[in-house]
């Protein structure tokens, strides 16, 4: 099951993202938290990886490390073989909480990154309009976030991330604020967009079915201090040669098996 056990397959492709023996401690007046312990794994270019684990096991911390918002206490975080030094336009981060700026229109929200990075604004604007329109927000470019539904806000946030043309996407429970029905369809939609554009994506979620339905591999973390527990390669041979969309994946024969294995693993650590 574990990717470590089948090394030969992808050895020739250099990893897009790599954690090498990463440790992270948080320091505060109350004390020290060992949030991530001896973490090592890598993600291939164009791959979609889901990370699951109990609350507080360091999932958001891993994404913050990758985005360059913080630096590991020890070990290395590498993108394209180079250590992460700080936030880079190459990495797009959709945060766990809704962070659309309510005083900006949807279009202006999407232009925040290009403004901060000092990119060509006319080009960025054309790009933002095209991206948002393709996400079904064409009618709402000049609306404020407060006038949009939860699912539309989620798509707008993705549009803002995509406007920077990142090649790595970090998604921190991007669907958790949505109701079940919307969550399924938005996940399908966003998964579809990410695959179509060939981005490398790392999705953090509590929802095991969601993790399986979207990913090429599922990384399971053990509770605090967060350590790598196992990695599961997700394939659906019964659904044909190409990987099915997230809805179809949920219907595939292999799905239950993956679910059962991962669920059992997350139950049995104490």
């Amino acid at each position, binding site marked *: 099951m574990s990717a470590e056990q089948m090394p030969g397959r992808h050895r020739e492709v250099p990893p897009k993202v790599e954690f090498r023996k990463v440790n992270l401690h948080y320091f505060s007046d109350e004390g020290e938290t060992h949030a991530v312990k001896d973490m090592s794994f890598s993600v291939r270019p164009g791959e979609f990886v889901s990370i699951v684990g109990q609350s507080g096991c360091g999932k958001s911390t891993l994404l913050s490390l990758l*985005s360059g*918002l913080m630096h590991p206490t020890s070990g290395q975080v590498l993108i394209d073989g180079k250590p992460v030094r*700080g*936030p*880079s*336009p190459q*990495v*797009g*981060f959709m*945060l*766990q*909480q809704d*962070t659309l*700026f309510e*005083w*900006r229109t949807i279009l202006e929200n999407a232009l*925040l*990154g290009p*403004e*901060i*990075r000092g990119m060509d604004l006319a080009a960025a604007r054309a790009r933002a309009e095209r991206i948002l329109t393709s996400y079904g927000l064409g009618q709402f470019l000049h609306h404020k976030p407060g006038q949009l539904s939860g699912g539309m806000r989620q798509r707008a946030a993705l549009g803002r991330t995509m406007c*920077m043309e990142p090649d790595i996407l970090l998604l921190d429970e991007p669907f958790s604020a949505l109701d079940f029905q919307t969550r399924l369809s938005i996940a399908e939609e966003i998964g579809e967009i990410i695959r179509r554009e060939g981005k490398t994506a790392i999705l953090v979620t509590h929802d095991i079915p969601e993790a399986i339905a979207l990913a090429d591999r599922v990384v399971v973390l053990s509770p605090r201090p967060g350590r790598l527990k196992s990695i599961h390669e997700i394939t659906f041979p019964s659904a044909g040669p190409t990987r099915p969309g997230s809805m179809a994946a949920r219907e595939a024969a292999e799905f239950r098996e993956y679910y059962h294995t991962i669920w059992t693993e997350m139950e049995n650590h104490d």
Partner: protein
Amino acid sequence: MTETAPATATPGTPTDPGTGSIAGPSVAYQNWIDRQSRNRRQVQVGRALILIAFLALWEVAPRAGLVNPMLTSYPSAVWEGFLELLAQGNLGLHIGVTLLEVMISFAVAMILGTVVAICLWLSPMLEKILDPFLVVGNALPKIALVPIFYIWLGPQGSIYAVAIAVALFITILMLYTGFSQTDPNKIKLARTLGAGKRQILTKVVLPGNVHTFMATLKANVGLSLVGVIVGEFQASKAGLGYLIVYGSQIFRMDMVMAAIVILSLMSVAIYLAVQKAETWLIR
């Protein structure tokens, strides 16, 4: 029971500007609108009645000998006092002087306070160091400083000094509190997009605090007016504060009351101007 009826009618209110006017309003909605406008009328009538009752009592009580007219004056005398001031020709001057002093102290307190609040936000270390001093500065009744300001700065300078001191600390504290309560996730997002401290300030903290800014502005209008009048009490040759003190010294209650009425009209006018600025700023 009448309280619950409007609540049940509320969902029928067309809130979406795009789709609101397809069907005509329902009967229940029409009733709700009628009830609303009846309520509004009642509120206005109530206010007018209170004002009329107050003025009538004020006019009748001294004339009927219930209170000493030397102490309270009465509306018709105040009106005549007002006309007299107008005839003397320098009422405009008094109003202008006070208004100018208020505007200047208000602007200085606002600008200085904003600059200090921004510096405090930019440097958490500075904020920690200055915190106890700001708390004391805010708690201290600035009016107690009027005599000192007078000795140091002379009559005109002390008016500005006390008005600015009254408004400055609250500006700093209100703005800094607003800045430091900016949603940390919005700041984190801006950081993932590569924003440095300065860009976080201009793209997240300042635009996210327009409401704090407006609230501070409103609080400051009143405070600068308090400061200016107190300053004028201590020493001045013109202004509404001067008029009030002068009137009381020569025991002309009509003049004092006329000045106070003008003062309250002035504060309402400034407040309305700030409110106009607010709707324009927030759009």
